[in-house]
């Protein structure tokens, strides 16, 4: 019985969404979403502006409550859990989470330690080097350009390659073609090491993704079923 259960859990995807609906202001953002993300695969979330990509990622990260539906995780050791947390889960949102008064290295070291990731000087330097920030380690974040800040935030990915799950919200934002290439390479490396990634992006990533999830606005029947609390015309 135990062996059978273990076998079942081994086949379980890293993340399974069943009929998930995210809401904003009490209105559903998309049709009920069911999705499996297996270990070592990349999932690209697409959708028009306002389709709910950010809300979906924030819900998966545990920052928002899901409206309806179920989120089931399997961590790296194939244990079922309701909430995946750091250091198994890494969420990089629109905001880079870098304080302008810290140096690039200090800001990255803080984010790594905050998420339970070892951050020795050598690995920090290597991570920043890989993102093309060599020589900027001691610069204050507020003196950096948007692209350089994004690179600093993404350097955390180098430190967490192969972690069970990355959730990335528009990771290609503000990146030049060189940095986009580095991010593509990181995603490939991550998947090769058994890590999964769910990312939202309005640009086509330079890597072959395993699945594309298109967020559709809720179908009219669902919309009319819900009574609007107010109407813009009134």
């Amino acid at each position: 019985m135990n062996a059978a259960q273990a076998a079942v859990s081994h086949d379980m995807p890293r993340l399974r969404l069943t009929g998930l609906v995210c809401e904003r202001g009490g209105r559903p953002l998309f049709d009920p979403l069911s999705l499996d993300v297996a270990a070592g695969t990349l999932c690209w979330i697409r959708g028009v502006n306002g389709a709910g990509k950010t809300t979906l990622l924030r819900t998966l990260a545990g920052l928002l409550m899901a409206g309806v539906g179920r989120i089931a995780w399997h961590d790296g050791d194939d244990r079922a859990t309701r909430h995946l947390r750091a250091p198994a889960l890494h969420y990089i949102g629109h905001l880079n989470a870098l304080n302008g008064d810290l140096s690039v290295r200090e800001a990255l070291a803080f984010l790594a330690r905050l998420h339970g990731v070892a951050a020795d000087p050598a690995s920090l330097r290597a991570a920043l080097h890989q993102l093309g920030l060599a020589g900027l380690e001691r610069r204050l974040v507020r003196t950096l350009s948007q692209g350089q800040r994004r690179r600093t935030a993404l350097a955390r990915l180098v430190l967490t390659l192969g972690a069970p799950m990355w959730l990335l919200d528009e990771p290609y934002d503000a990146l030049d073609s060189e940095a986009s290439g580095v991010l593509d390479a990181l995603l490939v490396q991550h998947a090769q090491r058994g890590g999964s990634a769910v990312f939202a992006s309005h640009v086509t990533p330079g890597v072959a993704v395993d699945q594309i999830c298109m967020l559709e606005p809720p179908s009219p029947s669902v919309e009319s079923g819900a009574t609007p609390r107010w109407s813009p015309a009134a």
Partner: protein
Amino acid sequence: MALPYGFALRREWRLRRRRASESLLPLAFFLAAATAFPIAIGPDPTALRQVGPGVIWACALLTCVATVGHAFSVDAGDGVLEQCLISAVPLTAWVACKAVVHWLWTGLPLVLVAPLLGLMFDLSAASVALLAATLLLGTPVLSLLGLLGAALTVGLRAASSLVVLLVLPLALPVLVFGCLAVSALDAGLPATPHLSLLGALLLLAIVALPPTIAAALRTSLG
């Protein structure tokens, strides 16, 4: 690493130090506010001695609650706060680190300059020492209450004034016991009961407020 969350403490300390002049503005506010009273009351030593402890305490209270409004706004704005909510570090521990450094830069300086203000109000050496002791026990409570107000108003535009309204009533017991201790000494009565009550308030605040602030932050961001 001796402290379990030393890296978070060091980060807060570093951020304060890099904006040292900004971080010490509460102290300047405190000095300016307390100095206004002798000027307004006039050079009568008896009157000054009578109001001195109360004025210094009220100014400390106002300083702590009026300057804390944006304690979390930078972290909320640049996304650090949302990372803290889902991090490997318990939010309460991060809040505690923040509170310690906050007090070291806003509460402790008030305790250190209070004797100087005591001279201005012609207080006796014993009164000044007792006043400093009550501030040492009371200001951490005020800092924590201020942070609770700041946590409840993260993301609101009128945060600063709201914090004052929210926190002042909660902080009144601290003010009452702090002032009572000094006036008891002046009346020749023992001050220890009031100091004990202040100490009890401090312990209660240390135990109860960090988790409350963490819960408030979760609510404000959720």
